[in-house]
């Protein structure tokens, strides 16, 4: 046995309705840990040579739902959703907080591999080693809250009360909304009404498989660890450290709605035409007094509880519920659309949750459409109605059209990059100029022009997860913390835990916990010297191979959106802009720090040293490696 793991995955083939267990060998776990690392390895092994022919929304793609050894042990449990991304056409590890992964691990699995496509809508039900593929036709087409309510009730009616044995808690559930069913590329995998695995577009992958949900319940303990006493001691140490994080604890990330604009000038405003505002109604003060019905809301083990529950209990948006909303949602569905009023922001965010749409990707494409409308490239006849900044109802309507692929929603449902290409060719303009995205992925809501946020010039341009603000390509690689820079995010996504629970403590503590759980003896040095280049080199190779509907060119596509080379027009950082020369130097430095050449191709000696000869051969075969 391997400490910290169940040592097996569940593989469900929806084409043949068959289920099997896949053993995980210790070497693979030691080298790739779990989550994003393991996903990268599985995808490379299964598809490597024919990666470019795998359609992310085709039957062949895999949907991976992987935990890691620290899931449930490190405070803040998450699961990593992956596969070939319909946004970047590479591998994205996208995590979501939930009790689902804890249930899955207590059921005896470290993860699920879903292959094939069901003939009719189905959901997968896991109760310890009982695995069923069940009919989902009654919930197909249903929004988030109704979907979850049905699945929980159906399960609780069957197993929640066992005569003579008592109550069982409800199961963990991952599901998609209507947007995922329609294979909208900005669709997410949802949990708990408001939690989403956003980046990557895996809601669409789930939809492409006719898979509405996965329901899991386990009644066993978490997998055995190397040293339980030490593990408990370290867990308690993490909890204690978290008590010092009062801003996150009390206000969550929603404090950013005002501060990221007013204090760091890096918030998207009207499709990034500005990154500054000082709208006082964006302050958390207005949310907490009016909307928050629960101040601290967390997932398994979490002591940060950055989530707060917002519920509108009166007025025209009565009944809408969402979390906080958190900063990214506020920024992208608020300021990026010129919307600032708290009720409107909560309303529009709750609609994204209900439809199963990514607030970032969808807010980005909505802002993009609104700018095209402002510039006269799209008009009322294209959209069906005027699309003016700040018009909540209009944006909500368009968001609905995206989720159901109605009218122009069908084009916008392709995400900003692909929509820009379609609109460019239809209208004979260069709409990509207004697309604030990198390699198919809209960038997170942390601009780089002011230089005051945690992001930098290379953050999005060079990340293997493209626009992902939770995995930014920053240098130096090491910060001493498991934080949002790609090298740290890769750890959080592979050991599978919430990075908000890890960036707040000393990195050493996180690695000690990994060791007390697994006994692998992996040090921070090992992580940065071997693991980071190993996993990122494969991720980078797959990203550059790409296809079949999108390909990226090294250097040309390792660049920032054109908008970031336009000076900021307003605020205390007016005129700030990305300096191309500085960016290019940093890019070279970033690639170099990973053992990649100046074009970001993993060097032969790097690959040899990492034992990735198969990756080297494949890059050679494709002419990427000289």
């Amino acid at each position, binding site marked *: 046995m391997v400490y910290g793991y169940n040592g097996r995955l569940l593989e469900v083939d929806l084409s043949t309705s068959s289920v099997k267990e896949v053993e995980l060998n210790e070497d693979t776990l030691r080298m790739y840990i779990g989550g994003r690392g393991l996903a990268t390895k599985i995808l490379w092994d299964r598809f490597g040579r024919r990666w470019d022919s795998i359609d992310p929304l085709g039957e062949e793609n895999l949907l991976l739902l992987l935990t890691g050894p620290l899931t449930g042990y490190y405070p803040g449990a998450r699961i990593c959703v992956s596969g070939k991304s319909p946004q970047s056409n590479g591998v994205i590890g996208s995590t979501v907080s939930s009790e689902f992964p804890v249930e899955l691990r207590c059921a005896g699995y470290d993860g699920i591999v879903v292959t094939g496509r069901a003939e009719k809508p189905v959901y997968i039900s896991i109760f310890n080693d009982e695995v069923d593929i069940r009919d989902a036709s009654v919930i197909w087409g249903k929004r988030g809250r109704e979907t979850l*309510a049905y699945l929980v009730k159906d399960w609780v009616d069957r197993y929640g009360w066992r005569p*003579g044995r*008592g*109550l069982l*808690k409800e199961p963990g559930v991952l599901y998609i909304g209507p947007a995922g069913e329609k294979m909208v590329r900005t669709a997410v995998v949802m949990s708990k009404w408001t939690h989403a695995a956003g980046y990557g577009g895996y809601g669409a992958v789930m939809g492409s498989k006719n898979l509405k949900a996965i329901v899991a319940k*386990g009644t066993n303990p978490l997998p055995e660890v190397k040293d339980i006493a030490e593990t408990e001691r370290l867990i308690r140490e993490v909890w204690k450290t978290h*008590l010092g994080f009062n801003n996150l604890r009390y206000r969550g990330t929603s404090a950013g709605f005002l501060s990221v604009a007013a204090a760091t000038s890096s918030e998207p405003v009207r499709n990034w035409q500005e990154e500054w505002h000082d709208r006082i109604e964006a302050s958390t003060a207005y949310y907490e007094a009016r909307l928050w019905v629960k101040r601290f*809301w967390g997932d398994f083990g979490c002591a940060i509880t950055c989530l707060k529950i917002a519920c509108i*209990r009166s007025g025209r948006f009565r*009944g809408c519920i969402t979390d906080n909303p958190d900063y990214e949602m506020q920024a992208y569905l608020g300021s990026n659309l010129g919307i600032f009023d708290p009720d409107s922001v909560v309303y529009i965010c709750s609609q994204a949750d209900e439809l199963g749409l990514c607030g970032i990707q969808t807010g980005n494409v909505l802002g993009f459409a609104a700018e095209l409308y402002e510039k006269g490239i799209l008009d009322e006849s294209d959209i069906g109605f005027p699309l003016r900044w700040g018009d909540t109802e209009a944006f909500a309507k368009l968001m609905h059209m995206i989720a159901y692929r109605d009218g122009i929603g069908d084009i916008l449902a392709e995400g900003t990059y692909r929509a820009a290409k379609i609109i460019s060719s239809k209208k004979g303009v260069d709409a990509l100029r207004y697309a604030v995205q990198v390699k198919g992925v809209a960038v997170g809501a942390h601009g780089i022009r002011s230089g005051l946020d945690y992001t930098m010039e290379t953050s999005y341009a060079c990340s293997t997860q493209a626009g992902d603000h939770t995995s930014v390509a920053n240098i130096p690689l090491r910060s001493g913390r498991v934080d949002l820079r790609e090298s740290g995010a890769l750890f959080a996504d592979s050991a599978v835990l919430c990075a908000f629970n890890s960036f707040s403590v000393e990195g050493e503590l996180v690695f000690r916990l990994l060791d007390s759980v697994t006994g692998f003896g992996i040090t921070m040095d090992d992580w940065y010297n071997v693991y980071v280049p190993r996993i990122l080199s494969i991720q980078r190779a797959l990203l550059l191979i790409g296809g079949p509907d999108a390909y990226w060119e090294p250097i040309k596509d390792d660049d920032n959106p054109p908008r970031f080379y336009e000076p900021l027009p307003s605020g205390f950082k007016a005129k700030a802009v990305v300096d191309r020369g500085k960016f290019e130097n940093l890019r070279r430095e970033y690639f170099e720090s990973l053992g990649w050449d100046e074009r970001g191709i993993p060097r032969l000696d790097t690959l040899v040293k990492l034992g990735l000869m198969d990756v080297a051969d494949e890059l050679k075969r494709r002419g990427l490696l000289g």
Partner: protein
Amino acid sequence: MPIWIARDYVRCSGCRKCEIVCSLKHEGRIWPEASRIRIFMYVPGLEVPHLCTQCVDYPCVNSCPFKALSIDENTGAVRVDKEKCTGCGKCIEACPGAVPFIHPRDGYAVICDLCGGDPECVKVCEEVGYNALILVKLEKPRLDFDILKKGYARKPIDVTKDLSILLYGEEVV
């Protein structure tokens, strides 16, 4: 000295640290379905800490055909004699809140033992600042308290419905 764990449902964050520490103490593992306190979440945001309230009349104790349950003189907790318990489930039926459950592996009834007077769940909940669980210490038994406590022996689904009205303004269950 009898003690009791009061609960403030609205403050429960759903962090489930109580499940973690309770199962670590009693099972030596992290084991949510074997924890003596379990957080039910039929509806997101409506987390219900579910645990024994030590009813004044202890219907569970009286219902056991094998005399496996007894009352701890010190704390008032229900003690389960694992040797005598056959896992018949009578105590579960007798409990108005369906609090006891049969251990998922070992087959005996699981009921909170108040950690012998020093509840781990309360300590952790307090330590992290949520205060959803509050320790009530009584110098001597008090009838008014005994009567009041029994109101907390409720099924999680009923608490969920009430909480839904309180937090969301309507029943969303």
